[in-house]
C-alpha cells in the first residue's frame, strides 16, 4: 500500500479516462460532425434593423417551423448576438432549404376564385352552426405517390417541396396556389389578388371550441388596416360576388394555402372570429402560429450562406484526420528520441487526453448538439503542441536540476513545483485567450476557441494528475535509474564526478 501513495491521482485519472472511453463506446456516442465535414447548409441571417430579443426568438421559432416542413433531420438554429445561425446538416435539396430560411414570407388573405380538389379522398367543407364562425377545409392525408412531371390543376406535383417563385405567387393578380400537407400536394386554389396581409392580425390562438373540436381564433387589429379590411373582403365572399365566387377566403403563407375557410357572415367583430374544421390539436396550433407570426417579424439580410457538398466535407475530414495522425506520429518520435522513457510517458499523456477529449466531444455532440467542425479539428491538432509543451518544460527543468548536482530522485518533485507554476501561467494565458475568443467572436472562430480551450484545460488536469506521478514512477525505478540515458536525463553529478576530472573543465579563467 505504501508504494501506491502519491500515485493516487495517476490511478484515478487513468481509471477515469478508461471509464469515460468505455462509456462512450458502450453508449455508442460519436462526435457530431459539423456541416463542413458532413455536408449541409449553413446560413447566417442578420436583422436589417435593431430588434429586441423577443423578436429574434419569434423569428427563430418560425424558421424552425419552415425547415421542419421540408423534413430534414436535426436543424440547428441558434442566435449569436442579434444574428441567427441556421445549420441544416445533410439536407438533400440544398437550394430549396437556402431559399426557405431567408424569405421574409408574408401571410396573405386572398379570395378564392376556384377550388380544384386533387385527391378524391380530400375532405370537403364542413360548416358549424355558429353564426360568427367560418369553416375551413381539412383534407385527409393523400396516398398518391408524387410524379414531378405530372401536373394537376396547373401545378406540378412536386410544388410542395420545390416551392413557389415570387412571379408564381403574383401578389397583385391572380395565381394558382397549392395546398400542401407534409410536403405533399393535396389541393389547388385559383386565387385573386392579396386583399389583406398578416400585419392586419393582432394575434391568434388555438383552443377547444364549444363542440369539443379544436378551433383557431384570430384577433384582428382595429381600424381599416385591421378588422375593417377583413370585413371588406369577407363581405365580398359572403355575397359570393365576382371577386370571390366560391365564398372562401384563402390564408396563404410562402405561396401555399394553409387554409381556405368559407365565410359564413357578412361582417365580424375583431375578436370573435373562429376558424373551425376537423383540426387536430397540432394542426390547429400550427395554423394559429402561422397566423400569429406568419411573416417573420423583421426583415433579415442573408449575411452568409454556405452549402457544403457531402463529398468535399468528407475529404476535408479525412485530410484533417490523416494530417493529425501524421503530426501525432512525428511529435511522438521526436519526444521519444529526445526524452526516451519520459518521452513515451508524454505520448501516453496525449493518449489519456485524447480518450477524455473524445468522450467529452461525443457526449456534447449527443446531448448538447455541439458539432465538431474543421476549425475544431484544427484546434485539437494545435493542442497536441500545447500539451507536449508542458512535458518539455518539466523535463528540461528536471534535466537542469540534475545538471546542477541534484539527484534525479530529489529533482523529480522539486522541479515539478517550479515547472508546474510555469505551465499554469502559460496555460492560463492560453485559456484567457480561448475564453475571450469564444465570447467575443462569431462563426468558426468559436468552434476553434472552444476546442483549444477544452484541450488546454485537459492539459492542466493531466499535467498535474498524470505527469508528476508518472515521471516519479520512472525516476524511482531502479532499472531506469541505473541507465539514465533511458530517461533522456544526464547522469547524476554525484556519479559523474568521480570519473570526470576538472582538467577538461577549467574552473576559472585566469584574469589577464
Amino acid at each position, binding site marked *: 500500500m505504501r508504494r501506491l501513495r502519491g500515485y493516487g491521482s495517476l490511478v484515478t485519472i487513468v481509471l477515469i479516462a478508461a471509464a469515460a472511453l468505455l462509456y462512450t463506446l458502450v453508449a455508442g456516442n460519436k462526435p457530431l460532425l459539423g456541416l463542413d465535414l458532413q455536408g449541409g447548409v449553413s446560413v447566417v441571417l442578420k436583422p436589417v434593423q435593431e430588434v429586441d430579443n423577443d423578436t429574434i426568438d419569434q423569428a427563430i421559432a418560425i424558421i424552425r417551423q419552415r425547415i421542419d416542413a421540408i423534413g430534414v433531420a436535426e436543424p440547428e438554429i441558434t442566435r449569436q448576438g442579434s444574428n441567427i445561425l441556421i445549420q441544416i446538416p445533410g439536407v438533400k435539396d440544398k437550394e430549396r432549404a437556402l431559399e426557405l430560411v431567408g424569405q421574409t414570407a408574408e401571410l396573405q388573405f386572398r379570395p378564392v376564385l376556384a377550388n380544384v380538389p386533387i385527391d378524391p379522398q380530400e375532405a370537403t367543407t364542413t360548416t358549424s352552426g355558429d353564426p360568427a364562425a367560418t369553416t375551413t377545409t381539412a383534407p385527409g392525408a393523400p396516398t398518391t405517390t408524387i410524379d414531378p412531371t405530372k401536373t394537376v390543376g396547373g401545378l406540378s406535383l412536386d410544388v410542395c417541396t420545390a416551392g413557389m417563385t415570387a412571379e408564381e405567387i403574383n401578389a397583385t393578380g391572380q395565381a394558382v396556389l397549392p395546398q400542401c400537407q407534409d410536403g405533399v400536394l393535396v389541393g389547388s386554389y385559383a386565387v385573386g389578388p392579396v386583399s389583406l396581409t398578416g400585419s392586419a392580425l393582432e394575434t391568434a390562438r388555438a383552443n377547444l371550441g364549444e363542440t369539443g373540436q379544436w378551433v383557431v381564433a384570430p384577433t384582428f387589429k382595429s381600424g381599416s388596416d385591421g378588422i375593417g379590411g377583413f370585413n371588406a373582403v369577407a363581405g365580398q365572399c359572403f355575397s359570393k360576388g365576382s371577386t370571390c365566387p366560391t365564398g372562401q377566403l384563402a390564408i396563404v403563407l410562402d405561396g401555399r394555402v394553409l387554409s381556405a375557410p368559407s365565410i359564413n357572415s357578412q361582417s365580424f367583430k375583431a375578436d370573435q372570429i373562429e376558424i373551425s374544421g376537423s383540426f387536430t390539436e397540432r394542426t390547429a396550433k400550427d395554423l394559429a402560429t402561422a397566423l400569429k407570426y406568419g411573416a417573420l417579424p423583421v426583415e433579415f439580410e442573408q449575411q452568409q450562406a454556405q452549402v457544403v457538398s457531402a463529398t468535399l466535407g468528407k*475529404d476535408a475530414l479525412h485530410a484533417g484526420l490523416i494530417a493529425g495522425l501524421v503530426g501525432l506520429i512525428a511529435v511522438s518520435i521526436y519526444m521519444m528520441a529526445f526524452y526516451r522513457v519520459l518521452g513515451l510517458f508524454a505520448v501516453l499523456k496525449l493518449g489519456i487526453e485524447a480518450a477524455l477529449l473524445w468522450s467529452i466531444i461525443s457526449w456534447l455532440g449527443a446531448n448538447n448538439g455541439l458539432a465538431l467542425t474543421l476549425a475544431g479539428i484544427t484546434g485539437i*491538432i494545435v493542442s497536441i503542441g500545447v500539451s507536449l509543451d508542458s512535458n518539455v518544460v518539466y523535463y528540461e527543468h528536471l534535466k537542469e536540476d540534475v545538471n546542477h548536482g541534484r539527484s534525479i530522485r530529489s529533482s523529480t518533485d522539486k522541479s515539478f513545483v517550479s515547472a508546474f507554476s*510555469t505551465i499554469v501561467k502559460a496555460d492560463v494565458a492560453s485559456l484567457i485567450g480561448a475564453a475571450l475568443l469564444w465570447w467575443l467572436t462569431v462563426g468558426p472562430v468559436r468552434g*476553434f476557441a472552444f476546442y483549444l480551450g477544452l484541450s488546454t484545460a485537459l492539459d492542466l488536469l493531466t499535467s498535474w494528475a498524470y505527469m508528476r506521478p508518472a515521471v516519479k514512477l520512472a525516476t524511482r525505478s531502479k532499472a531506469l535509474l541505473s541507465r539514465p540515458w533511458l530517461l533522456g536525463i544526464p547522469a547524476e553529478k554525484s556519479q559523474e564526478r568521480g570519473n570526470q576530472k*576538472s582538467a577538461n573543465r577549467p574552473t576559472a579563467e585566469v584574469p589577464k
Partner: protein
Amino acid sequence: MSTLGRLNRGETNIDFLKWWKIGLALSVFLMVVSVGSLLTRGLNLGIDFEGGVSWEVSAPGVSVDETRTALDAVGEGSAKIQIVGTDIIRVQGPESTPEHTIEVTRTLAELADVDPADISFSTVGASWGGDVTKSAIRALVFFFIAILIYLTVRLEWRMAVAALVAVFHDVLISVGAYSVFQFEVTPGTVIAFLTILGFSIYDTIVVDDKIRENERLVGQSGRLTYGQMTSLSMNQVLLRSINTTVVSLLPVVALLVVGAGIMGAVTLEEFAIALTVGLLAGAYSSIFVAAPILVWLKEHQSKFKVIRERLQSQGVDVAHAAARVDLLGVTPGAPAIDGSSTSATASGATALGTTSTPSGVIPPRPRKNQRKR
C-alpha cells in the same frame, strides 16, 4: 563537449546581447517591409471580407480555361477561377441573386459531370467579413488588456509590456507575410492569427519565468547587469524554447504538408500557413523581441542601473554577455570555485567551470528534508 551536448545540458554560451542587435535590425527590417507591403499592396482579402459567391467542386481533369468557357455562357466569364489542392476548382464571383447562384451551380455540375448536390458554394454579404474582423479586433483588444493584467499580477508589468510588444510584432509580421506573398485572407486566417497570440505568450512566459528566477540572484550578487543575466537565462532555457517550438510546429507542419499539400483540403491550408508563420515569429520574438525590451525597461530601474554603472566603473564589458557565471557563488560539490569566481568577476571574466545555476533559488536540501512519500 559538442555544441549539441552543451545545448542539451543548457550550457551554451551564446552572447544574446550581441544577437539582440542583429535581431533588432532584422525585426525593424521585417516590420518596415510588412507595413510597406500593407500600405502599397494591401491584403488579398477573400470573398468573406468583400462579399460574393464562391463555388467549389471536385473536378479532376477540368482546366481553368474549360471552366471559363463554360461559365461565360452564364455571365461569369470574368469570375476568378483557380484550381486549389489537387483537383478542386474554385470559382469566385461578385454577389448575385440566388437564382443566378443556382444557375452557375448547375453549369459547374454539368462541367464536372457531378450531381449539383456535390457542389459546395457559399454566398457572403459584404458586411459579414466586416463583422468577423470587427469581432476579431474586439477580441484582440480584450485579449491584450486581459493578458496585460494577468501577467502584471503573475509576473510584473515590465514583462507584460515586453510580452505584448512581442505579440504585436508577431501579428504585424504574420499579416505582413500575408501581404507580401498575397496569400488569401479568410476567416480561417483570422482564427490562426488569434492563436498565434496564445503561442507567442506561451514562449515568452517560459523565458520570463526563468529570468525572474535568476533576477533575485542578480540583485544579490551584483555581478551581472540585467542584460547579461537575461542572456544567461536565455542560454539556460534555449533547449526548452527550441523543443516547445518544435513540438508545436510539427503537428502544424503536418497539417500544411499532409492535409493541405497532399490531400488538398483548402480550409486546412488557410489555417496551417498562418499558424506556421505565426509560430516561427512567436518563437523568434520571445527571444529577440520580448527579452531585449524587458532588459531595456529593467535597466532603467534604479536598482539595476546602479549595478550596471558600478560594473561599468569597474571596467567590466557590459555590452557583451558575461561568460557562464555562477550566480550563487556556491556550487554544490565544487566549493573550490568560490574564491576564483570572485576574483574573476572583478576583471569581467567569470567562472566557466561549474556552469551551475540551480533552477530553484534554494540550494538543494539534504535528503532528510525531502518530504517522504
